[in-house]
């Protein structure tokens, strides 16, 4: 009986807690661990605005929760292709640039991207690429592109992202086909390539592909550049190579949902993040490419020398566009090929 009483008290307390939403609040829905705790605390200390940080682990998790009607978020962190979709569906609020003077710190190269040509809705947060990690102690032959990775001699020595669209994109790159035009003809061409590739892979892992490489269970991988940067920091034998055929570049952005209850606080947070000394903290925790040129000047020579974070100029990089219904075709294709083994 006592347990029941405690329970009722807990329930009442939690109701009370959720009912109280004081002014000066910010509901941030972002990638797990992507916004460092120090940044959140620093913002609250300076502005008095309390940050409620809720996390997700993929763009589709974010979209699912929003579409199913969850939460009243003030600031979200989708990747560029999800943002493009949300702009088209009028799910994002336009930014008030007068409130964001620190926009001047951003790398002009990332301005006017296809997902938001006028930069009206989105601010780049970090960007990264998908590329090849080579354990140079074991693999002595030069690895330049996708075709060098997927060779019969590397059977069961490979880890790749467990992401069906990525897999098909690499196949399209290796065939010299455009990666954002997914139609039955392109998929028919990609199919035999992917079929050969899935037979060679030892591990599919999107969450922590570095584990299999560090453990020595595999020698080569196609992974997020952030993973590759962590590997390089751990041991310089892990070299990052951007595939010669071309590579996927992603841009994680900050955006304000159209129905956000605290838009002013959201602007304040974006402007805070854009300060060089704040953005630098993000870089220290997450070795992706920082679009904030001011922050880059504050990084150490070693951080800037990390080839996974700051790849040499001249690489062929392309962002994903939303492919609509074709995503289902890709899923069917890869599921089919994987289960045929």
């Amino acid at each position: 009986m006592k347990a029941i009483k405690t329970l009722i008290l807990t329930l009442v307390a939690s109701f009370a807690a959720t009912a109280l939403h004081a002014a000066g609040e910010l509901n941030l829905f972002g990638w797990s661990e992507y916004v460092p705790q120090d940044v959140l605390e620093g913002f609250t200390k300076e502005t008095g605005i309390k940050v409620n940080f809720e996390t997700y682990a993929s763009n589709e998790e974010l979209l699912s929760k929003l579409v199913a009607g969850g939460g009243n978020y003030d600031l979200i962190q989708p990747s560029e292709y999800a943002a493009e979709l949300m702009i088209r569906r009028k799910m994002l609020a336009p930014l008030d640039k007068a409130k964001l003077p620190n926009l001047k710190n951003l790398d002009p190269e990332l301005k006017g991207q296809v997902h938001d040509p006028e930069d009206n809705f989105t601010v780049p947060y970090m960007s990264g690429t998908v590329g090849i990690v080579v354990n140079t102690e074991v693999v002595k032959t030069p690895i330049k592109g996708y075709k060098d990775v997927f060779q019969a001699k590397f059977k069961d020595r490979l880890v790749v992202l467990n992401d069906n669209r990525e897999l098909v994109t690499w196949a399209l790159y290796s065939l010299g086909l455009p990666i954002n035009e997914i139609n039955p003809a392109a998929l028919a061409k990609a199919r035999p390539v992917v079929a050969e590739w899935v037979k060679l892979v030892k591990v599919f892992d999107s969450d922590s592909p570095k584990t299999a490489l560090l453990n020595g269970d595999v020698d080569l991988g196609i992974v997020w550049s952030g993973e590759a940067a962590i590997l390089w920091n751990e041991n310089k034998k892990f070299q990052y190579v951007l595939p010669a055929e071309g590579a996927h570049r992603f841009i994680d952005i900050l955006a304000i949902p159209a129905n956000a209850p605290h838009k002013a606080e959201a602007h304040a947070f974006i402007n805070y993040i854009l300060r060089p000394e704040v953005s630098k903290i993000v870089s220290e925790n997450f070795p992706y490419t920082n679009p904030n040129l001011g922050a880059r000047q504050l990084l150490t020579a070693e951080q800037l020398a990390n080839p996974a974070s700051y790849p040499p100029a001249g690489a062929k990089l392309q962002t994903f566009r939303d492919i609509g219904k074709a995503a289902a075709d890709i899923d069917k294709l890869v599921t089919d090929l994987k289960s045929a083994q």
Partner: protein
Amino acid sequence: MPVPAPRPLLPSGLKLLNWFLAGWTTLVFIFLYVPIAVLIVYSFNSSRLNIVWEEFTLTWYGKLLENKPLILAAKNSLVIAGASTVLSVILGTVGAWLLHRYRFRMARGIQTLVAIPMVMPEILMGISLLILFATAGMRLGFTTVIIGHVTFCFPFVLVAVQARLQGLDPALEEAALDLGATPLKAFWFVIVPSLRPAIIAGALMAFTLSMDELIVTFFIRSAASVTLPIQVYGLARVGLNPMLNALSAIFLLATVAFVLFSAYLKKLSPR
């Protein structure tokens, strides 16, 4: 309910069987605890990515205490699992008893419905519950998370209790009723005590399921009601560091200490 007298020793011919059972149980416990031992040892590993052993350190225990989000998530998980377990035990035990005790047309339908949450893929349960809560205008938070957890936990209690009920002597309740007890009293004072082992088993399962659930929770939680699995899963992206092992080690040691302490108290208290 008086504690039953210790059982008589088995006749010597069955000793072999007993030895076998003890040996087998030891082996299974080794299987259960080998990964846990590894996990605890690695909580003292100085390597941040915790994949190869470097050297002994206690720093992760210190860092754990400073990591407010992780501590908060652990606290939330305990509260949510505790509340879900209490509710699941009530719903599951009463439900099992009524389904066992009475014959009515809806019984088989209810029985099947109870099993649905066990088979429903987590993502479907998460999204459909979120749609329901959003449509009903409920704010996400502890309440919604506990509702979700009870929904997939209480069938486990119900099934465990039902298995126990199947061998229960029907004369037990009738006797109590004859002696003048109301059906409610008969249930509380006669049936529940005889179901205790199954209720404990069910409660343990419910608590464990709730402590470890990730996907349903993701959809029906708010920023405040973050749980441990969600926090841990997020950390996998930056690399699971030994801090998480340290947290697990503390959990385990606290439970084991609790077990030993309660055993010690029982020994002290005179019968």
